[in-house]
Protein backbone atom coordinates (compact mmCIF):
# COMPACT_ATOMS: atom_id res chain seq x y z
CA UNK A 1 0.00 0.00 0.00
CA UNK A 2 1.19 3.53 -0.77
CA UNK A 3 0.53 6.23 1.77
CA UNK A 4 1.35 9.84 1.08
CA UNK A 5 0.50 13.25 2.53
CA UNK A 6 0.02 15.73 -0.30
CA UNK A 7 -0.51 19.49 -0.41
CA UNK A 8 -3.39 20.37 -2.69
CA UNK A 9 -3.39 24.15 -2.24
CA UNK A 10 -1.11 26.64 -0.60
CA UNK A 11 -0.89 30.35 -0.02
CA UNK A 12 1.87 32.48 1.44
CA UNK A 13 0.64 34.46 4.45
CA UNK A 14 1.90 37.94 5.33
CA UNK A 15 4.16 37.01 8.24
CA UNK A 16 6.35 33.92 7.80
CA UNK A 17 3.71 31.25 7.36
CA UNK A 18 2.33 29.16 4.53
CA UNK A 19 -1.31 28.11 4.61
CA UNK A 20 -1.59 24.59 3.24
CA UNK A 21 -4.56 22.37 2.51
CA UNK A 22 -3.40 18.78 2.75
CA UNK A 23 -4.72 15.32 2.09
CA UNK A 24 -3.63 11.82 2.92
CA UNK A 25 -3.77 9.44 -0.03
CA UNK A 26 -3.92 5.69 0.57
CA UNK A 27 -3.84 3.35 -2.41
CA UNK A 28 -2.55 -0.06 -3.47
CA UNK A 29 1.02 -0.12 -4.75
CA UNK A 30 1.80 -0.63 -8.39
CA UNK A 31 -1.50 0.61 -9.82
CA UNK A 32 -2.01 3.93 -11.60
CA UNK A 33 -4.32 6.61 -10.22
CA UNK A 34 -5.86 7.02 -13.63
CA UNK A 35 -6.74 3.36 -13.91
CA UNK A 36 -8.35 3.26 -10.46
CA UNK A 37 -10.35 6.42 -11.09
CA UNK A 38 -11.58 5.12 -14.43
CA UNK A 39 -12.77 1.92 -12.79
CA UNK A 40 -14.70 3.96 -10.20
CA UNK A 41 -12.36 3.25 -7.31
CA UNK A 42 -11.62 6.59 -5.69
CA UNK A 43 -13.37 7.81 -2.57
CA UNK A 44 -12.72 11.19 -0.91
CA UNK A 45 -13.51 11.84 2.72
CA UNK A 46 -13.64 15.56 3.47
CA UNK A 47 -14.16 17.43 6.72
CA UNK A 48 -13.33 20.66 8.51
CA UNK A 49 -14.97 23.09 6.09
CA UNK A 50 -16.52 24.47 9.27
CA UNK A 51 -13.66 24.87 11.70
CA UNK A 52 -15.60 24.17 14.89
CA UNK A 53 -17.08 20.89 13.67
CA UNK A 54 -14.74 18.15 14.81
CA UNK A 55 -16.68 14.88 14.56
CA UNK A 56 -14.99 14.23 11.20
CA UNK A 57 -11.54 14.29 12.84
CA UNK A 58 -12.25 10.96 14.50
CA UNK A 59 -13.60 9.51 11.26
CA UNK A 60 -10.47 10.52 9.32
CA UNK A 61 -8.15 9.00 11.89
CA UNK A 62 -10.15 5.82 12.40
CA UNK A 63 -10.52 5.27 8.65
CA UNK A 64 -6.78 5.33 8.00
CA UNK A 65 -6.12 3.31 11.16
CA UNK A 66 -8.44 0.51 10.04
CA UNK A 67 -7.06 0.52 6.50
CA UNK A 68 -3.57 0.36 7.97
CA UNK A 69 -4.51 -2.85 9.82
CA UNK A 70 -5.35 -4.59 6.54
CA UNK A 71 -3.50 -2.81 3.76
CA UNK A 72 -3.82 -5.93 1.59
CA UNK A 73 -7.60 -5.38 1.42
CA UNK A 74 -7.28 -1.96 -0.20
CA UNK A 75 -8.07 -2.04 -3.92
CA UNK A 76 -8.69 1.62 -4.67
CA UNK A 77 -7.85 5.20 -3.69
CA UNK A 78 -8.87 6.66 -0.35
CA UNK A 79 -8.22 10.40 -0.11
CA UNK A 80 -8.64 11.87 3.37
CA UNK A 81 -8.94 15.65 3.74
CA UNK A 82 -9.23 16.37 7.47
CA UNK A 83 -8.90 20.16 7.42
CA UNK A 84 -10.36 22.19 4.59
CA UNK A 85 -10.38 25.27 6.83
CA UNK A 86 -7.21 25.04 8.94
CA UNK A 87 -7.58 28.63 10.21
CA UNK A 88 -11.05 27.86 11.51
CA UNK A 89 -9.95 24.68 13.27
CA UNK A 90 -7.07 26.52 14.92
CA UNK A 91 -9.33 29.39 16.01
CA UNK A 92 -12.42 27.39 17.10
CA UNK A 93 -14.32 29.26 14.43
CA UNK A 94 -16.99 27.98 12.07
CA UNK A 95 -16.03 30.31 9.24
CA UNK A 96 -12.68 31.55 8.00
CA UNK A 97 -11.28 33.92 10.62
CA UNK A 98 -9.96 37.28 9.39
CA UNK A 99 -12.50 37.14 6.58
CA UNK A 100 -15.61 36.36 8.62
CA UNK A 101 -16.56 34.13 5.75
CA UNK A 102 -18.43 30.82 5.65
CA UNK A 103 -16.18 28.60 3.57
CA UNK A 104 -19.23 26.60 2.50
CA UNK A 105 -20.55 29.64 0.60
CA UNK A 106 -17.61 30.21 -1.75
CA UNK A 107 -17.58 27.11 -3.95
CA UNK A 108 -16.73 26.41 -6.77
CA UNK A 109 -14.26 29.21 -6.08
CA UNK A 110 -12.17 31.03 -8.64
CA UNK A 111 -8.52 30.45 -9.51
CA UNK A 112 -8.12 34.15 -10.19
CA UNK A 113 -10.11 35.28 -7.16
CA UNK A 114 -8.91 36.17 -3.69
CA UNK A 115 -7.02 33.81 -1.41
CA UNK A 116 -10.11 31.90 -0.25
CA UNK A 117 -11.73 31.69 -3.67
CA UNK A 118 -8.43 30.46 -5.04
CA UNK A 119 -8.17 27.75 -2.39
CA UNK A 120 -11.78 26.71 -3.03
CA UNK A 121 -11.05 26.36 -6.74
CA UNK A 122 -7.93 24.29 -6.04
CA UNK A 123 -9.96 22.02 -3.77
CA UNK A 124 -12.58 21.46 -6.46
CA UNK A 125 -9.82 20.75 -8.97
CA UNK A 126 -8.32 18.14 -6.67
CA UNK A 127 -11.70 16.40 -6.42
CA UNK A 128 -11.72 15.69 -10.15
CA UNK A 129 -11.62 11.96 -10.68
CA UNK A 130 -13.31 11.21 -7.37
CA UNK A 131 -16.10 8.66 -7.71
CA UNK A 132 -17.70 9.35 -4.34
CA UNK A 133 -17.14 12.11 -1.82
CA UNK A 134 -18.34 12.41 1.78
CA UNK A 135 -18.42 15.90 3.27
CA UNK A 136 -18.62 15.39 7.03
CA UNK A 137 -20.14 18.11 9.19
CA UNK A 138 -21.02 18.16 12.87
CA UNK A 139 -24.14 20.30 12.95
CA UNK A 140 -22.88 23.37 14.84
CA UNK A 141 -22.08 24.23 18.43
CA UNK A 142 -25.77 24.71 19.23
CA UNK A 143 -27.43 21.49 18.10
CA UNK A 144 -26.77 17.77 18.40
CA UNK A 145 -27.86 15.62 15.48
CA UNK A 146 -28.33 11.88 14.95
CA UNK A 147 -26.03 10.66 12.14
CA UNK A 148 -27.73 11.70 8.93
CA UNK A 149 -27.17 12.53 5.31
CA UNK A 150 -28.78 15.61 3.80
CA UNK A 151 -29.57 15.59 0.12
CA UNK A 152 -30.70 18.38 -2.17
CA UNK A 153 -33.87 17.30 -4.03
CA UNK A 154 -32.07 18.02 -7.32
CA UNK A 155 -29.65 15.16 -6.69
CA UNK A 156 -31.84 12.72 -4.80
CA UNK A 157 -32.32 10.12 -7.55
CA UNK A 158 -28.61 9.43 -7.67
CA UNK A 159 -27.65 10.07 -4.07
CA UNK A 160 -30.41 8.43 -2.00
CA UNK A 161 -29.53 4.88 -3.18
CA UNK A 162 -25.87 5.49 -2.30
CA UNK A 163 -26.70 7.07 1.06
CA UNK A 164 -28.83 4.02 1.95
CA UNK A 165 -25.60 2.01 2.25
CA UNK A 166 -23.74 4.46 4.48
CA UNK A 167 -24.98 3.27 7.89
CA UNK A 168 -26.58 6.56 8.97
CA UNK A 169 -29.85 6.80 10.90
CA UNK A 170 -31.58 9.33 8.68
CA UNK A 171 -31.58 10.54 5.08
CA UNK A 172 -33.16 13.94 4.84
CA UNK A 173 -34.04 15.13 1.35
CA UNK A 174 -34.63 18.88 1.42
CA UNK A 175 -35.87 21.43 -1.08
CA UNK A 176 -33.49 23.26 -3.40
CA UNK A 177 -32.43 26.78 -2.51
CA UNK A 178 -30.38 29.29 -4.48
CA UNK A 179 -28.18 30.06 -1.49
CA UNK A 180 -27.01 26.45 -1.29
CA UNK A 181 -25.61 26.61 -4.81
CA UNK A 182 -22.33 27.90 -3.40
CA UNK A 183 -21.74 24.90 -1.12
CA UNK A 184 -18.95 22.38 -1.65
CA UNK A 185 -21.40 19.50 -2.07
CA UNK A 186 -23.61 21.32 -4.57
CA UNK A 187 -20.61 22.32 -6.67
CA UNK A 188 -19.38 18.74 -6.84
CA UNK A 189 -22.77 17.17 -7.47
CA UNK A 190 -23.31 19.76 -10.15
CA UNK A 191 -20.11 18.54 -11.80
CA UNK A 192 -21.25 14.93 -11.64
CA UNK A 193 -19.07 14.03 -8.64
CA UNK A 194 -21.43 12.26 -6.26
CA UNK A 195 -21.17 13.92 -2.86
CA UNK A 196 -22.97 13.10 0.35
CA UNK A 197 -23.27 15.67 3.13
CA UNK A 198 -23.09 14.00 6.53
CA UNK A 199 -24.29 15.81 9.64
CA UNK A 200 -23.77 14.15 12.99
CA UNK A 201 -23.09 14.89 16.62
CA UNK A 202 -22.37 18.41 17.78
CA UNK A 203 -19.80 21.14 17.23
CA UNK A 204 -16.57 21.28 19.26
CA UNK A 205 -16.92 17.68 20.44
CA UNK A 206 -16.21 14.15 19.25
CA UNK A 207 -18.85 11.45 19.64
CA UNK A 208 -16.89 8.24 19.25
CA UNK A 209 -19.97 6.03 18.70
CA UNK A 210 -21.08 8.15 15.77
CA UNK A 211 -17.58 8.20 14.38
CA UNK A 212 -17.41 4.40 14.44
CA UNK A 213 -20.87 4.12 12.95
CA UNK A 214 -19.91 6.31 10.01
CA UNK A 215 -16.56 4.60 9.50
CA UNK A 216 -18.47 1.30 9.27
CA UNK A 217 -20.63 2.95 6.63
CA UNK A 218 -17.61 4.19 4.70
CA UNK A 219 -16.20 0.65 4.61
CA UNK A 220 -19.54 -0.60 3.31
CA UNK A 221 -19.49 2.05 0.59
CA UNK A 222 -15.89 1.22 -0.24
CA UNK A 223 -16.71 -2.48 -0.54
CA UNK A 224 -19.60 -1.60 -2.82
CA UNK A 225 -17.28 0.45 -5.04
CA UNK A 226 -14.66 -2.28 -5.17
CA UNK A 227 -12.19 -0.27 -3.11
CA UNK A 228 -12.21 -2.66 -0.13
CA UNK A 229 -12.20 -6.44 -0.12
CA UNK A 230 -11.80 -6.91 3.63
CA UNK A 231 -14.52 -7.51 6.23
CA UNK A 232 -17.49 -5.21 6.02
CA UNK A 233 -19.77 -4.48 8.98
CA UNK A 234 -23.50 -4.88 8.51
CA UNK A 235 -25.18 -1.51 7.91
CA UNK A 236 -28.47 -0.27 9.33
CA UNK A 237 -31.51 0.83 7.30
CA UNK A 238 -31.96 4.58 7.62
CA UNK A 239 -35.20 6.48 7.89
CA UNK A 240 -35.72 8.39 4.64
CA UNK A 241 -37.58 11.67 4.73
CA UNK A 242 -38.57 13.03 1.34
CA UNK A 243 -39.09 16.50 2.71
CA UNK A 244 -38.86 18.64 -0.43
CA UNK A 245 -41.95 20.53 0.60
CA UNK A 246 -40.76 20.98 4.17
CA UNK A 247 -43.78 19.26 5.73
CA UNK A 248 -42.11 16.28 7.40
CA UNK A 249 -40.53 18.10 10.31
CA UNK A 250 -41.69 20.07 13.33
CA UNK A 251 -39.28 22.87 14.21
CA UNK A 252 -39.10 23.95 17.84
CA UNK A 253 -38.08 27.60 18.06
CA UNK A 254 -37.65 29.39 21.37
CA UNK A 255 -40.63 31.59 22.19
CA UNK A 256 -38.51 33.69 24.57
CA UNK A 257 -34.91 34.56 25.20
CA UNK A 258 -33.62 32.59 28.18
CA UNK A 259 -31.73 29.51 29.25
CA UNK A 260 -32.83 26.20 27.73
CA UNK A 261 -32.71 23.00 29.77
CA UNK A 262 -33.00 19.93 27.59
CA UNK A 263 -34.91 17.02 29.06
CA UNK A 264 -34.93 14.57 26.16
CA UNK A 265 -32.02 13.26 24.12
CA UNK A 266 -31.74 13.32 20.38
CA UNK A 267 -32.87 10.05 18.86
CA UNK A 268 -35.82 9.58 21.25
CA UNK A 269 -39.40 8.99 20.18
CA UNK A 270 -41.72 11.63 21.58
CA UNK A 271 -45.47 12.02 21.83
CA UNK A 272 -47.66 15.05 21.27
CA UNK A 273 -47.63 17.27 24.36
CA UNK A 274 -44.61 15.53 25.88
CA UNK A 275 -42.07 17.84 27.48
CA UNK A 276 -38.74 18.13 25.68
CA UNK A 277 -37.26 20.90 27.78
CA UNK A 278 -37.94 24.32 29.18
CA UNK A 279 -36.78 27.91 28.90
CA UNK A 280 -36.11 29.70 32.17
CA UNK A 281 -34.91 33.06 33.43
CA UNK A 282 -32.26 32.49 36.11
CA UNK A 283 -32.34 36.18 37.08
CA UNK A 284 -35.98 36.23 38.11
CA UNK A 285 -36.38 32.53 38.74
CA UNK A 286 -39.26 32.34 36.28
CA UNK A 287 -40.14 29.35 34.14
CA UNK A 288 -40.63 31.21 30.87
CA UNK A 289 -41.88 28.36 28.75
CA UNK A 290 -42.33 24.62 28.72
CA UNK A 291 -41.21 23.21 25.40
CA UNK A 292 -43.44 20.37 24.30
CA UNK A 293 -43.69 18.23 21.20
CA UNK A 294 -46.36 19.60 18.84
CA UNK A 295 -47.02 16.06 17.59
CA UNK A 296 -45.76 12.48 17.73
CA UNK A 297 -42.42 11.77 16.12
CA UNK A 298 -38.71 11.24 16.32
CA UNK A 299 -36.57 13.89 17.99
CA UNK A 300 -33.55 13.81 15.70
CA UNK A 301 -32.10 17.21 16.67
CA UNK A 302 -31.86 18.73 20.13
CA UNK A 303 -30.31 21.96 21.36
CA UNK A 304 -27.08 21.44 23.24
CA UNK A 305 -26.10 25.07 23.84
CA UNK A 306 -28.24 26.41 26.69
CA UNK A 307 -28.46 30.12 25.83
CA UNK A 308 -31.41 30.86 23.54
CA UNK A 309 -32.88 33.97 22.04
CA UNK A 310 -36.37 34.37 20.76
CA UNK A 311 -36.33 32.23 17.60
CA UNK A 312 -33.36 30.01 18.46
CA UNK A 313 -33.84 26.44 17.26
CA UNK A 314 -34.20 23.98 20.15
CA UNK A 315 -35.08 20.81 18.30
CA UNK A 316 -36.48 19.09 15.25
CA UNK A 317 -38.98 16.25 15.25
CA UNK A 318 -39.57 14.04 12.24
CA UNK A 319 -43.33 13.58 12.17
CA UNK A 320 -44.74 10.15 12.88
CA UNK A 321 -46.54 10.25 9.52
CA UNK A 322 -43.18 10.54 7.75
CA UNK A 323 -41.84 7.60 9.76
CA UNK A 324 -44.89 5.46 9.02
CA UNK A 325 -44.56 6.06 5.31
CA UNK A 326 -41.24 4.31 5.69
CA UNK A 327 -42.57 1.31 7.55
CA UNK A 328 -40.75 2.29 10.75
Amino acid at each position, binding site marked *: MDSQVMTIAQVQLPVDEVLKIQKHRLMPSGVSVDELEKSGKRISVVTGIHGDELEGQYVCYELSRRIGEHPEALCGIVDIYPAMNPFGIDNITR*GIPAFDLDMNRIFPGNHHGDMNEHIAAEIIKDMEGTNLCLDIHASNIFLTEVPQIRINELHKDILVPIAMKSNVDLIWVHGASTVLESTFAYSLNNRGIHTLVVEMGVGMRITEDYGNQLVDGIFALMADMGIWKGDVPKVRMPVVSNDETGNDVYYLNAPFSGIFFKERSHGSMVQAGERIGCVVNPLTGELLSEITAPGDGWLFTIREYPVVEEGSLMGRILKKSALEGMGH
Partner: protein
Amino acid sequence: MKEEILYEIKGLYRDDFRVKGYRFGGGENSVCIMGSMRGNEFQQIYVCSQLIQKLKQLEEKGKIVDGEGILVIPCGNPYSVNVKKRFWTIDNTDINRMYPGYSLGETTQRIAAGIFEQIKDYRYGIQFASFYMPGNFVPQVRVMKTGMENIELAKQFGLPYVVLHHPRPFDTTTLNYNWQIWETDAFSIYTTSTSAVDKESAKQAVDAVLNFLSKQGIIQHRGYEGFISRVVESHDFVNVRTAFAGFFEKIAEAGERVDKGQILAKIVDPYTGDVRQEIVSPIEGIIAFAHNESMAYQNTAVYKLIAEENEA
Protein backbone atom coordinates in the same frame (compact mmCIF):
# COMPACT_ATOMS: atom_id res chain seq x y z
CA MET B 1 -40.62 63.67 13.20
CA LYS B 2 -42.02 60.65 14.94
CA GLU B 3 -39.84 58.08 16.62
CA GLU B 4 -41.22 54.56 16.58
CA ILE B 5 -40.14 51.07 17.56
CA LEU B 6 -40.46 48.95 14.44
CA TYR B 7 -39.31 45.64 15.82
CA GLU B 8 -38.44 44.31 19.25
CA ILE B 9 -37.16 41.15 20.93
CA LYS B 10 -37.00 40.77 24.69
CA GLY B 11 -33.47 40.31 25.98
CA LEU B 12 -32.41 37.98 28.79
CA TYR B 13 -29.42 39.75 30.35
CA ARG B 14 -29.19 42.52 27.77
CA ASP B 15 -31.58 45.38 27.15
CA ASP B 16 -34.33 44.51 24.67
CA PHE B 17 -33.30 44.40 21.05
CA ARG B 18 -35.00 47.31 19.31
CA VAL B 19 -35.10 48.57 15.75
CA LYS B 20 -36.19 52.20 15.71
CA GLY B 21 -37.56 54.20 12.82
CA TYR B 22 -37.97 57.96 12.34
CA ARG B 23 -40.95 59.05 10.30
CA PHE B 24 -41.35 62.34 8.43
CA GLY B 25 -44.37 63.64 6.51
CA GLY B 26 -47.22 61.20 6.17
CA GLY B 27 -49.70 59.47 3.94
CA GLU B 28 -47.95 57.45 1.26
CA ASN B 29 -45.08 55.08 1.92
CA SER B 30 -42.81 57.06 -0.36
CA VAL B 31 -39.26 56.28 0.64
CA CYS B 32 -37.54 54.16 3.25
CA ILE B 33 -33.89 54.70 4.11
CA MET B 34 -32.01 51.92 5.85
CA GLY B 35 -28.71 52.38 7.65
CA SER B 36 -26.51 49.80 9.31
CA MET B 37 -27.37 46.12 9.52
CA ARG B 38 -23.90 44.98 10.58
CA GLY B 39 -22.00 45.81 13.72
CA ASN B 40 -19.12 47.58 11.99
CA GLU B 41 -21.25 49.92 9.89
CA PHE B 42 -20.70 53.12 11.86
CA GLN B 43 -20.61 55.38 8.82
CA GLN B 44 -24.00 54.04 7.73
CA ILE B 45 -25.54 55.04 11.08
CA TYR B 46 -23.83 58.41 10.95
CA VAL B 47 -25.17 59.20 7.49
CA CYS B 48 -28.71 58.42 8.69
CA SER B 49 -28.28 60.69 11.72
CA GLN B 50 -27.20 63.54 9.45
CA LEU B 51 -30.10 62.87 7.12
CA ILE B 52 -32.49 62.92 10.07
CA GLN B 53 -31.10 66.35 11.05
CA LYS B 54 -31.85 67.69 7.56
CA LEU B 55 -35.28 66.09 7.32
CA LYS B 56 -36.23 67.59 10.70
CA GLN B 57 -35.37 71.03 9.43
CA LEU B 58 -37.23 70.48 6.17
CA GLU B 59 -40.28 69.24 8.04
CA GLU B 60 -40.26 72.25 10.37
CA LYS B 61 -40.19 74.51 7.32
CA GLY B 62 -43.08 72.60 5.70
CA LYS B 63 -40.86 71.42 2.88
CA ILE B 64 -41.99 67.82 2.91
CA VAL B 65 -44.61 67.53 0.20
CA ASP B 66 -48.13 66.71 1.43
CA GLY B 67 -48.99 63.06 1.41
CA GLU B 68 -45.38 61.88 1.12
CA GLY B 69 -44.02 59.71 3.92
CA ILE B 70 -40.36 59.12 4.69
CA LEU B 71 -39.01 56.48 7.06
CA VAL B 72 -35.37 56.44 8.21
CA ILE B 73 -33.98 53.42 10.10
CA PRO B 74 -30.47 54.29 11.27
CA CYS B 75 -29.68 50.82 12.55
CA GLY B 76 -31.25 47.40 12.10
CA ASN B 77 -28.79 45.72 14.44
CA PRO B 78 -27.87 47.67 17.60
CA TYR B 79 -26.91 44.45 19.45
CA SER B 80 -23.94 43.82 17.13
CA VAL B 81 -22.88 47.48 16.98
CA ASN B 82 -22.74 47.71 20.76
CA VAL B 83 -20.43 44.73 21.09
CA LYS B 84 -18.39 45.66 18.00
CA LYS B 85 -19.12 42.42 16.24
CA ARG B 86 -19.88 42.47 12.52
CA PHE B 87 -22.55 39.78 12.46
CA TRP B 88 -25.21 38.57 14.86
CA THR B 89 -24.03 38.16 18.41
CA ILE B 90 -24.75 34.55 19.26
CA ASP B 91 -24.62 32.67 15.95
CA ASN B 92 -22.65 35.03 13.68
CA THR B 93 -25.37 35.14 11.02
CA ASP B 94 -25.78 38.19 8.79
CA ILE B 95 -29.18 39.92 8.90
CA ASN B 96 -28.56 41.12 5.35
CA ARG B 97 -28.48 37.48 4.22
CA MET B 98 -31.88 36.69 5.74
CA TYR B 99 -34.37 38.65 3.62
CA PRO B 100 -37.27 38.48 3.14
CA GLY B 101 -37.05 36.75 6.52
CA TYR B 102 -39.30 34.27 8.26
CA SER B 103 -41.32 35.31 11.27
CA LEU B 104 -41.44 31.77 12.73
CA GLY B 105 -37.79 31.00 12.03
CA GLU B 106 -34.52 31.65 13.82
CA THR B 107 -33.65 34.95 15.47
CA THR B 108 -32.07 36.79 12.54
CA GLN B 109 -34.74 35.45 10.16
CA ARG B 110 -37.32 36.94 12.53
CA ILE B 111 -35.50 40.26 12.68
CA ALA B 112 -35.27 40.43 8.88
CA ALA B 113 -38.95 39.51 8.60
CA GLY B 114 -39.89 42.07 11.26
CA ILE B 115 -38.00 44.83 9.47
CA PHE B 116 -39.13 43.79 6.00
CA GLU B 117 -42.76 43.70 7.04
CA GLN B 118 -42.49 47.41 7.91
CA ILE B 119 -40.56 48.50 4.83
CA LYS B 120 -41.59 46.29 1.93
CA ASP B 121 -44.37 48.48 0.61
CA TYR B 122 -42.31 51.59 -0.07
CA ARG B 123 -42.01 53.11 -3.52
CA TYR B 124 -38.28 53.73 -3.10
CA GLY B 125 -35.81 51.91 -0.88
CA ILE B 126 -32.36 53.28 -0.15
CA GLN B 127 -29.80 51.33 1.82
CA PHE B 128 -26.45 52.57 3.04
CA ALA B 129 -24.39 49.48 2.46
CA SER B 130 -20.89 48.22 3.07
CA PHE B 131 -18.61 45.98 1.08
CA TYR B 132 -17.33 42.62 2.32
CA MET B 133 -13.74 43.71 1.80
CA PRO B 134 -12.08 46.37 3.96
CA GLY B 135 -11.49 49.48 1.91
CA ASN B 136 -12.58 52.85 0.63
CA PHE B 137 -14.97 53.48 -2.21
CA VAL B 138 -15.54 56.29 -4.60
CA PRO B 139 -19.16 57.23 -3.76
CA GLN B 140 -21.56 55.20 -5.84
CA VAL B 141 -25.10 53.93 -6.18
CA ARG B 142 -25.36 50.20 -6.71
CA VAL B 143 -28.32 48.62 -8.38
CA MET B 144 -28.87 44.90 -8.67
CA LYS B 145 -29.84 43.65 -12.10
CA THR B 146 -32.94 41.67 -11.28
CA GLY B 147 -34.76 42.70 -14.43
CA MET B 148 -36.72 45.23 -12.36
CA GLU B 149 -33.93 47.76 -11.86
CA ASN B 150 -34.36 51.40 -12.83
CA ILE B 151 -31.09 52.92 -13.96
CA GLU B 152 -32.47 56.34 -14.89
CA LEU B 153 -33.73 56.76 -11.34
CA ALA B 154 -30.36 55.73 -9.93
CA LYS B 155 -28.73 58.56 -11.83
CA GLN B 156 -30.91 61.07 -9.99
CA PHE B 157 -28.82 60.81 -6.84
CA GLY B 158 -26.14 62.70 -8.70
CA LEU B 159 -23.34 60.51 -7.37
CA PRO B 160 -20.32 60.02 -9.64
CA TYR B 161 -21.10 56.38 -10.45
CA VAL B 162 -24.05 54.09 -10.89
CA VAL B 163 -22.82 50.52 -10.66
CA LEU B 164 -24.91 47.68 -12.06
CA HIS B 165 -24.38 44.44 -10.29
CA HIS B 166 -25.42 40.94 -11.35
CA PRO B 167 -26.78 39.07 -8.34
CA ARG B 168 -24.82 36.01 -7.23
CA PRO B 169 -26.59 33.11 -5.48
CA PHE B 170 -26.12 34.59 -2.02
CA ASP B 171 -27.31 38.06 -3.10
CA THR B 172 -30.88 36.77 -3.36
CA THR B 173 -31.24 37.06 0.40
CA THR B 174 -30.19 40.71 0.69
CA LEU B 175 -32.54 43.57 1.43
CA ASN B 176 -31.80 45.29 -1.88
CA TYR B 177 -32.70 42.21 -3.93
CA ASN B 178 -35.92 41.53 -2.02
CA TRP B 179 -37.01 45.13 -2.16
CA GLN B 180 -36.81 44.92 -5.95
CA ILE B 181 -38.68 41.62 -6.02
CA TRP B 182 -41.43 43.30 -3.95
CA GLU B 183 -41.51 46.11 -6.55
CA THR B 184 -39.69 48.77 -4.59
CA ASP B 185 -37.10 50.70 -6.61
CA ALA B 186 -34.06 49.82 -4.53
CA PHE B 187 -30.64 51.45 -4.37
CA SER B 188 -27.57 50.73 -2.31
CA ILE B 189 -25.38 53.72 -1.61
CA TYR B 190 -21.70 53.20 -0.85
CA THR B 191 -19.91 56.08 0.78
CA THR B 192 -16.16 56.16 1.28
CA SER B 193 -15.88 54.36 4.60
CA THR B 194 -17.54 51.82 6.90
CA SER B 195 -16.15 51.49 10.42
CA ALA B 196 -14.65 54.99 10.54
CA VAL B 197 -16.91 58.01 10.17
CA ASP B 198 -16.00 60.10 7.14
CA LYS B 199 -17.90 63.38 7.45
CA GLU B 200 -17.21 64.61 3.96
CA SER B 201 -18.53 61.53 2.21
CA ALA B 202 -21.42 61.36 4.68
CA LYS B 203 -22.40 64.87 3.64
CA GLN B 204 -22.19 63.87 0.00
CA ALA B 205 -24.48 60.90 0.70
CA VAL B 206 -27.01 63.09 2.55
CA ASP B 207 -26.97 65.59 -0.32
CA ALA B 208 -27.44 62.78 -2.81
CA VAL B 209 -30.49 61.44 -0.98
CA LEU B 210 -32.01 64.92 -0.65
CA ASN B 211 -31.32 65.52 -4.32
CA PHE B 212 -33.10 62.27 -5.18
CA LEU B 213 -36.08 63.01 -2.90
CA SER B 214 -36.46 66.45 -4.40
CA LYS B 215 -36.38 65.07 -7.97
CA GLN B 216 -39.11 62.56 -7.02
CA GLY B 217 -41.25 65.40 -5.65
CA ILE B 218 -41.10 64.08 -2.08
CA ILE B 219 -39.42 67.16 -0.62
CA GLN B 220 -38.90 70.73 -1.77
CA HIS B 221 -35.22 71.30 -1.62
CA ARG B 222 -32.73 73.11 -3.72
CA GLY B 223 -29.16 72.24 -3.11
CA TYR B 224 -26.56 70.11 -4.53
CA GLU B 225 -27.01 69.08 -8.14
CA GLY B 226 -24.20 66.61 -8.02
CA PHE B 227 -22.62 64.78 -10.90
CA ILE B 228 -23.90 63.40 -14.14
CA SER B 229 -23.49 59.77 -13.14
CA ARG B 230 -21.50 57.40 -15.22
CA VAL B 231 -23.07 53.93 -15.46
CA VAL B 232 -20.70 51.00 -15.11
CA GLU B 233 -21.22 47.27 -14.81
CA SER B 234 -19.55 45.76 -11.77
CA HIS B 235 -17.88 43.10 -13.93
CA ASP B 236 -16.19 45.88 -15.90
CA PHE B 237 -14.19 46.82 -12.80
CA VAL B 238 -10.57 45.91 -13.30
CA ASN B 239 -9.23 44.10 -10.24
CA VAL B 240 -5.64 44.75 -9.31
CA ARG B 241 -4.40 41.95 -7.08
CA THR B 242 -1.45 41.35 -4.83
CA ALA B 243 0.93 38.66 -6.02
CA PHE B 244 2.48 38.49 -2.54
CA ALA B 245 1.35 39.00 1.04
CA GLY B 246 2.87 41.60 3.32
CA PHE B 247 2.58 45.20 4.46
CA PHE B 248 0.42 47.16 2.07
CA GLU B 249 1.92 50.60 1.50
CA LYS B 250 -0.76 52.57 -0.25
CA ILE B 251 0.22 55.33 -2.64
CA ALA B 252 -2.97 55.94 -4.64
CA GLU B 253 -6.37 56.51 -3.01
CA ALA B 254 -9.98 55.82 -4.00
CA GLY B 255 -11.28 58.42 -6.44
CA GLU B 256 -7.86 59.18 -7.96
CA ARG B 257 -7.32 59.12 -11.69
CA VAL B 258 -4.31 56.98 -12.55
CA ASP B 259 -2.22 56.26 -15.65
CA LYS B 260 -1.34 52.91 -17.08
CA GLY B 261 1.92 51.76 -15.49
CA GLN B 262 1.58 54.07 -12.47
CA ILE B 263 2.65 52.55 -9.15
CA LEU B 264 -0.43 52.32 -6.93
CA ALA B 265 1.06 50.63 -3.87
CA LYS B 266 3.87 48.44 -2.64
CA ILE B 267 3.88 45.14 -0.85
CA VAL B 268 6.71 45.08 1.63
CA ASP B 269 8.26 42.13 3.45
CA PRO B 270 7.09 42.61 7.04
CA TYR B 271 10.39 41.43 8.53
CA THR B 272 13.06 42.92 6.30
CA GLY B 273 11.32 45.88 4.68
CA ASP B 274 12.26 44.62 1.22
CA VAL B 275 9.76 45.48 -1.48
CA ARG B 276 8.10 42.25 -2.59
CA GLN B 277 5.91 43.82 -5.24
CA GLU B 278 5.18 47.15 -6.83
CA ILE B 279 1.52 47.16 -7.66
CA VAL B 280 1.13 48.81 -11.02
CA SER B 281 -2.01 50.06 -12.69
CA PRO B 282 -2.77 47.91 -15.75
CA ILE B 283 -4.92 50.64 -17.31
CA GLU B 284 -5.65 54.33 -17.37
CA GLY B 285 -8.68 54.94 -15.21
CA ILE B 286 -10.27 55.88 -11.91
CA ILE B 287 -9.78 54.05 -8.64
CA ALA B 288 -13.24 52.92 -7.59
CA PHE B 289 -12.06 50.97 -4.56
CA ALA B 290 -8.86 50.88 -2.54
CA HIS B 291 -7.86 48.44 0.21
CA ASN B 292 -7.33 50.27 3.49
CA GLU B 293 -5.61 47.85 5.86
CA SER B 294 -1.92 47.77 6.67
CA MET B 295 -1.54 44.13 5.71
CA ALA B 296 -2.70 42.41 2.58
CA TYR B 297 -3.01 38.73 1.82
CA GLN B 298 -1.85 37.16 -1.38
CA ASN B 299 -4.33 37.47 -4.30
CA THR B 300 -6.29 40.28 -2.64
CA ALA B 301 -8.01 42.72 -4.99
CA VAL B 302 -6.47 45.80 -3.38
CA TYR B 303 -7.75 48.10 -6.11
CA LYS B 304 -10.74 48.09 -8.39
CA LEU B 305 -10.42 50.40 -11.37
CA ILE B 306 -12.85 51.81 -13.87
CA ALA B 307 -11.25 52.06 -17.29
CA GLU B 308 -10.92 55.45 -18.93
CA GLU B 309 -11.89 54.24 -22.42
CA ASN B 310 -15.25 53.00 -21.14
CA GLU B 311 -16.18 56.58 -20.35
CA ALA B 312 -19.37 57.50 -22.17
